[in-house]
């Protein structure tokens, strides 16, 4: 199936100012414009403090921009109430965090199924889907383990599975490989790329690791909150 | 050095404002409640005791030998002893006042009712200065009329006899010679002392009229003594016993053991309640201290790594917990003291329950008592609770090896 190329995600004139004190203003993002097509595999890179995380958080509705708009699949996210945002995150956006952030009391399978259950899918459907995604990520044998029984690479694969399993429109991954050794990091990115291809899910991730950045098909570079390069392969 | 410690401690309390405020509020409210409870319950018991002392027993009462077992006029304090006793009582500086009473059991009757009664011949003027008997008057006047033909009776007795001011009552009793004799009096006053025994049974009449009625020329059945300082009661009693071996000398608590028992029970009750409160509050403080130490293990590890001594950490934690404990205590003590002061001056008015209070023999308006030991005990307990929770927190801190923790991610 060839992905239909439409303007799927529009980031319009996004700026973000942090105000840690009354007198001080720190610009984190400065007038970012970006549009991403459905099914893309995009990396956002740049030195630390360049605004990667802030941008991802704003796209995902976790953070509010000072100015600008986010439009996802024709729907304006900016200005929505927290409850609506939570619904959008649940149904349309998957998150992968740098620190894995699995729910510690749930097993790998339960972590993967958590969002699907929130969506109200049946037990059987959750089971089938979680198993399918886990097999693609090579963690099918670890499904009954608790997070603390898994290695970092394994945990991050569970986290990716959790993000992808509910079939979101968009997966956002903030430095998913930062805590992994280079081998695991490369493997994780390969798997994410495979999911992107096979499931057609749009993935945006951030990284400052050149080996990882090289695997993306489109690379966006931020510096001091400004977009400096945007290269498609 | 000290300032740095306080600064760090204050900053860490500020960082967890909600939590610190909760602990302070908890201590404050629990102490406030506790102080109120202690002050008011003590006020109630002490008022009951005071009523018994004022209306009947004094701090110490003297009776003739055998009178307590057989309350007959034969066992009164004889005339010869009375004179000696009066001289003694007038000269002892520890005494603030004393009164003589001539009592006899008998019968009081109206047209329809009759009840057992204790006829008590008294000198109203002296009783006024002694136990402020006049303050207990609820109806009528404080006097026996010009011809001493009046009677002041307890309000419960009046209720039972269905007699009011001006009503006629007939007293029947045996006189000194065992002859049954009777006299008619008019009710001039009704008193409510909340000394149950007195309110239910006593008819006060003029002591001279009583002497005539009962045929007793000399001697009395009871001498009640009020002391300037109630702490001296036991010593005073011992002295009197030595001086008047032929008389029975009883303290108020020997005459009203139930009241003493109330006080003991109340104190025990307060102790149990305060132990529970401090125990539970201690658990609260412990939880907070433990968590605030545990979540800062890294921070402490860094401080240790850059050369801070463990003693300094201990001082910081101690200052933090003491700050919370003392603030809570001060707030609670202030609120408690203020409300007790209010109830001490204006009284806690529970007149709604007056029927019940009458049944108990208690005043419907309670004036709270404020004792310094409420505050001292609470302070010591809070400090103790704080120190114990600090001790545990420090042990846990040592066990968690803070320096090693900083090397972990």
């Amino acid at each position, binding site marked *: 199936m060839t992905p239909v190329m439409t303007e799927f995600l529009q980031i319009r004139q996004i700026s973000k100012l942090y105000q840690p004190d009354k007198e001080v203003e720190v610009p984190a993002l400065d007038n970012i414009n970006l549009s991403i097509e459905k099914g893309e595999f995009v990396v956002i890179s740049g030195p630390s403090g360049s605004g990667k995380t802030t941008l991802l958080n704003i796209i*995902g509705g*976790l953070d509010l921009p000072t100015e600008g708009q986010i439009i996802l699949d024709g729907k304006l996210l900016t200005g929505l109430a927290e409850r609506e945002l939570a619904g959008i995150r*649940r149904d349309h956006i998957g998150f992968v965090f740098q620190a894995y952030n699995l729910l510690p009391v749930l097993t790998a399978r339960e972590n993967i199924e958590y969002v699907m259950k929130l969506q109200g899918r049946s037990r059987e459907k959750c089971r089938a889907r979680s198993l399918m995604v886990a097999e693609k990520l090579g963690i099918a044998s670890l499904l009954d383990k608790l997070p603390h029984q898994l290695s970092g690479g394994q945990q991050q694969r569970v986290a990716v599975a959790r993000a992808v399993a509910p079939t979101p429109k968009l997966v956002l991954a903030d430095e998913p490989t930062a805590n992994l050794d280079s081998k695991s990091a490369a493997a994780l990115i390969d798997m994410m790329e495979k999911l992107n291809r096979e499931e057609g899910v749009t993935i945006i991730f951030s990284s400052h690791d050149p080996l990882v950045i090289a695997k993306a098909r489109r690379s966006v570079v931020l510096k001091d909150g400004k977009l400096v390069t945007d290269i498609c392969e | 050095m000290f300032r740095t410690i306080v600064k760090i401690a204050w900053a860490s309390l500020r960082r967890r404002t909600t939590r610190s405020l909760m602990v302070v509020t908890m201590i404050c409210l629990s102490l406030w409640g506790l102080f109120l409870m202690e002050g008011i319950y003590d006020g109630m018991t002490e008022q009951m005791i005071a009523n018994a002392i004022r209306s009947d027993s004094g701090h110490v009462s003297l009776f003739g030998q055998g009178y307590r077992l057989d309350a007959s006029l034969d066992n009164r304090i004889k005339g010869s002893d009375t004179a000696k006793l009066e001289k003694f009582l007038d000269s002892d500086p520890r005494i603030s006042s004393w009164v003589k009473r001539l009592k006899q059991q008998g019968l009081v009757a109206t047209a329809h009712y009759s009840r057992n009664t204790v006829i008590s011949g008294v000198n109203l003027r002296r009783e006024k200065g002694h136990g402020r008997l006049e303050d207990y008057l609820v109806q009528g006047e404080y006097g026996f009329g010009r011809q001493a033909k009046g009677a002041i009776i307890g309000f419960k007795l009046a209720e039972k006899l269905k007699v009011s001011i001006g009503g006629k009552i007939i007293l029947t009793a045996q006189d000194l010679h065992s002859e049954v004799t009777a006299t008619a009096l008019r009710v001039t006053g009704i008193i409510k002392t909340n000394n149950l025994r007195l309110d239910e049974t006593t008819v006060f009449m003029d002591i001279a009229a009583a002497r005539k009625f009962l045929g007793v020329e000399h001697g009395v059945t009871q001498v009640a003594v009020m002391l300037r300082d109630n702490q001296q009661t036991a010593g005073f009693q011992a002295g009197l016993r030595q001086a008047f071996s032929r008389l029975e000398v009883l303290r108020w608590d020997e005459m009203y053991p139930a009241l003493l028992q109330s006080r003991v029970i109340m104190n025990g*009750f307060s102790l149990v*309640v305060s132990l529970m409160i401090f125990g539970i509050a201690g658990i609260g403080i412990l939880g907070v201290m433990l968590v605030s130490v545990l979540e800062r293990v890294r921070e402490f590890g860094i401080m240790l790594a850059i050369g801070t001594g463990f003693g300094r950490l201990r001082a910081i934690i101690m200052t933090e917990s003491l700050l919370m404990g003392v603030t809570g205590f001060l707030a609670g003590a202030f609120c408690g003291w203020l409300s007790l002061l209010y109830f001490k001056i204006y009284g806690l008015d529970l007149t709604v329950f007056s029927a019940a209070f009458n049944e108990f023999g208690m005043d419907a308006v309670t004036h709270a008592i404020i004792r310094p030991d409420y505050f001292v005990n609470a302070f010591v307990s809070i400090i103790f609770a704080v120190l114990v929770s600090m001790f545990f927190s420090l042990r846990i801190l040592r066990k968690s090896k803070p320096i090693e923790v900083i090397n972990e991610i």
Partner: protein
Amino acid sequence: MLFQFALRNVLAHGKRSVVTILLGTISTALLVFSSAWMDGSHQQMIKNAVEIYPGYIQITGAEFRQSPSFEHLLFDVDKIQAEVIDIAGVALFTPRFEAFVLFSVGDKTVGGMLTGINPEKERRVSRLCAALKDGEYLENNDNNQLYIGNELARRLQVKVGDELVFIGTGADYSFAADRLIVKGIFQTGLFEFDAGSAFLAKSYFDRIMASKNLATHGIVLPENLNRSAQLAGVIGRRIGPKYQVADWQQTMAGLVKSMQLDSCFGYITLAIIFIVIFFVVMIYTLLAVFARLKEIGIMRAIGTTPRQVFAILLWESSILGFISVWVGGLIGAAFAWYFCIHPLVFSGMEEQFKQYGLAASAIPSAFEPLTIGRDMAVMFLLLLLSTLYPIIKVNRYQPIEALHHV
């Protein structure tokens, strides 16, 4: 799904759960037992006071309570008895005739109440028989044999078998006097009563006091003691306005009020303890919830709505509260039940009890499932309420703040 997740959290955070459950359990057990104890002692006091002599339901002439003269007697006791005993729910009716007389021995004279009773029926409506201290209780066909209070006997200095004289006024206003022999001495523990009462079999009493078919009042024993008030109403309507029917709550209004007052103080004291428990549970919940703030941030970030987070946390409190309330309730109930069957005996506290009108020094607790259930429900709500603030507070965090909270 939310419930299961909450359950997992409760199980995973063992220490917090144990402390919270422990606090809740102790509080519930304390509340359940304290109220069982208060209710029990109050019921016992009232039961005592009622059963020693006054009885559950009293019938008098309409005016008798206002002016208890011989003009306001029950004049046809047999007819009243026949009517009353016919009413459903009445177990027994017995008449009494009280007269104030002077007792005299040698040169001692003491006034007191001489009452004619039906000894066999009296056994069932009052504790007179059980209060026997010395000698024997009366029988229906006894003659001039007297059952006298120990304090009155002491004042008259008489023992069982001794003789005394009484002087009084008969129901026909005639002069009445007789020689009596002490058959038994009783002690109820109520000082005033023991110091002023003596009893004769009514059959004999009627002969010397001219009181046949007359009574100052009648006592009705209801089959169900808890329905005294209703039964009194029924009796009142049946026998008409010539008579007054009062149940114990009317005849002993002061005592009933004083018990309420005592409960009131009891609950105030408990409330002070519960304020502290409330805060400790709140603090522990706050600590627990904030220790998991990051986790909550993750939940929120991956699409859990604030309402769902609220539900999960509330479920956790409910599970903890539910367990504590049941464990504590059962412990408290077990104690209440045990002390209901084995009343606590306070020896050496008679003085105190007499002041409360309590003759016996054994106090049982009340075992009433309804009250226990009420206390458990109250405690459950209190526990939930104490966790509400921390839960609301944690829910106010934006997901991003929560994620980065340290």
